[in-house]
């Protein structure tokens, strides 16, 4: 490991520690039983098999949106419609499962493909707008998330709503559902798809020509332009692929044993969580499962804490935000970085002299 990489690792650990520390301080302020709350937060996930299973269940959607965002952000396309793509992916999977009757082995595959395509179509809108009108993909994708949310609710209420439930779809048929892997838990076969997507995402970004072009555009668009890389191609490929993966994630989540019906009438937030996954994974899809595991652990702990004590789950959002802030703040620990670089340079010099 060279000094730059080692420094990044140290910095990330510090960022996480500081974020946890700040969260603990907040807990001490708002809670009547702060020690119990912190114990629940930190050790809760290990208390039972079900709790531990929760960690792995909630890790799955995060890997999908995280990988999608990694690909878009690697090309410096700040498309935030991963949130909407995930949502629409879930909707399309539900509609397909309910309306297209297919045999058990085929049904999930068709549903998931359709949900991935739906996600890609959604993130294609900011991408095409950027190519055709030069509109910032950031602003258009932010608007699109709300359009996707309300449109999905519209489809739910008008076309697939089960009158007996009020605001949920009919039950997803078993033929379309993803099976659970372990008895008594809801860890499902989607975890293999998630890890496969993360690995393929890595291979695409780091081992293919298009992936390389994409990263060059992300590093320096002017340079990429002069070296003959088609910027339009990169804008489209990165965002379509990002939406494809996020949409697939939405489909996997909905067909999983966690949901029996499509019930998403509010934003689930996985698109936003993807930002911290991408930040922690340093835009490398290969690291997203680890970042997702960390975040899933934290959130499971927080959920257990909020049920057992008087501290609300929302504290996690603050922890997440502080981690993002410290990881992306270039100046954080920059003095230490200088020292590290200076030390390495001196050592190299000594070695040279000795030789």
């Amino acid at each position: 490991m060279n000094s730059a990489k080692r420094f990044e690792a140290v910095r990330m650990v510090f960022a996480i520690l500081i974020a946890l520390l700040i969260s603990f301080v907040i807990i001490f302020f708002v809670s009547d039983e702060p020690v119990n709350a912190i114990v629940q937060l930190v050790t809760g996930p290990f208390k039972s098999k079900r709790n531990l299973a929760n960690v792995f269940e909630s890790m799955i959607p995060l890997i999908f949106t995280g990988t999608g965002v990694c690909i878009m952000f690697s090309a410096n396309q700040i498309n935030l419609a991963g949130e909407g793509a995930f949502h629409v992916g879930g909707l399309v999977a539900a509609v397909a499962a309910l309306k297209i009757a297919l045999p058990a082995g085929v049904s999930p595959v068709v549903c998931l493909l359709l949900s991935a395509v739906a996600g890609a179509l959604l993130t294609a809108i900011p991408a095409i707008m950027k190519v055709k009108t030069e509109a910032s993909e950031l602003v258009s994708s932010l608007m699109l998330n709300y359009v996707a949310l309300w449109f999905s609710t519209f489809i739910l209420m008008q076309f697939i709503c089960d009158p007996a439930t009020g605001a949920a779809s009919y039950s997803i048929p078993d033929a379309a559902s993803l099976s659970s892997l372990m008895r008594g838990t809801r860890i499902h076969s989607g975890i293999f798809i998630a890890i496969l997507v993360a690995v393929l995402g890595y291979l695409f970004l780091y081992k293919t020509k298009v992936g390389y072009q994409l990263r060059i555009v992300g590093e320096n668009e002017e340079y990429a332009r002069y070296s003959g890389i088609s910027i339009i191609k990169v804008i489209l490929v990165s965002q379509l692929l990002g939406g494809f993966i996020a949409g697939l994630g939405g489909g996997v989540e909905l067909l999983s044993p966690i949901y029996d019906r499509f019930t998403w009438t509010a934003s689930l937030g996985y698109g936003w969580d993807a930002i911290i996954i991408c930040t922690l994974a340093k835009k490398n899809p290969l690291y997203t499962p680890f970042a997702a595991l960390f975040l899933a652990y934290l959130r499971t702990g927080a959920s257990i804490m909020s049920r057992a004590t008087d501290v609300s789950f929302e504290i996690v959002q603050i922890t997440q935000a502080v981690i993002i802030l410290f990881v992306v703040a270039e100046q954080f620990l920059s003095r230490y970085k200088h020292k590290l670089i200076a030390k390495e340079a001196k050592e190299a010099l000594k070695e040279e002299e000795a030789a």
Partner: protein
Amino acid sequence: MLNGIFSVEFVNSILRATTPILFATMASAVAAKAGICNMALEGMMLLSALFGVLFSAMGGGIFGTASGLSQFASFGFGFLLTVLVGGLIGLIFAFCILHMKADEILAAIALNLIASGGTVMILMAVAGEKGASSTIASVAAPKVVIPLIGSIPVLGEILSGQNLLTWLSILAVIVMHVFLYKTPMGLKIRAVGENKNAAESVGISARKIQYIALVISGMLASMGGFYLSGGYMNMFTREMAAGRGYIALAASSMGADTPVGGFLVSILFGIAQAVANLMQLTTIPMQLIQLIPYLTTLIGLGIYSYARMKRRKKLLSSE
């Protein structure tokens, strides 16, 4: 529905919907003129909406709410404190991106996350509730009744009885226009936004100017946030900013980041929202009506960006 459009209530509903967006659009414009995309507007508005309720309730505790005057004092106390805290949030955001060199979009996402989680935590701690602040006795911004004009039909009905903050938002447009285009500080802000290095070469500290712009931006956003919970509604509800900060980013960009341009786009947005409100009386599904403001903004952004691109290409080819 046509009857609805030609009524005083319709104009009022446009103004009600426009006010928070207008403040936020001004906030976005001043930051954009200094070269910063302030996506943290959303979180700034949300935090201020909660602080507005808390501080005005605090004001109510100090000055009482018995008479009109004491009510006004309570509101004034709450409003000033909220704007002050808004400036402080702007300062913290500026510190993160200018001093700590965090990416402005990622730092904004972080701030919005803090706002989203923080408001729920604070509400829980203060009111013991997660969803709304209905148990807190906050003091809303007063309505301005103009004595003689109020009795003129139609025009008087529109001019009189508007929320004080609606007037303040229109005043903010004029003030921001004068500030950005007629004062030395405004010139410096625009110079930094136009070309940071060129501005620094003539001795302007770009960092200082951007700090100032973001503090102003935070204060303007907090006025919009205050209006949400003390004008538009009379309490704080969870996630009540509902993307208005993001809409303001679009509105400001469509108005070429000028106060007057942003004002016109904000009014257009207000009209879209008011039409959506009227449509709730029809049989059109509620969910489709809800997406109108966002879809309008999206389409508007596309049209504006296309026109701007054409204009630029024409300029380039005529050279």
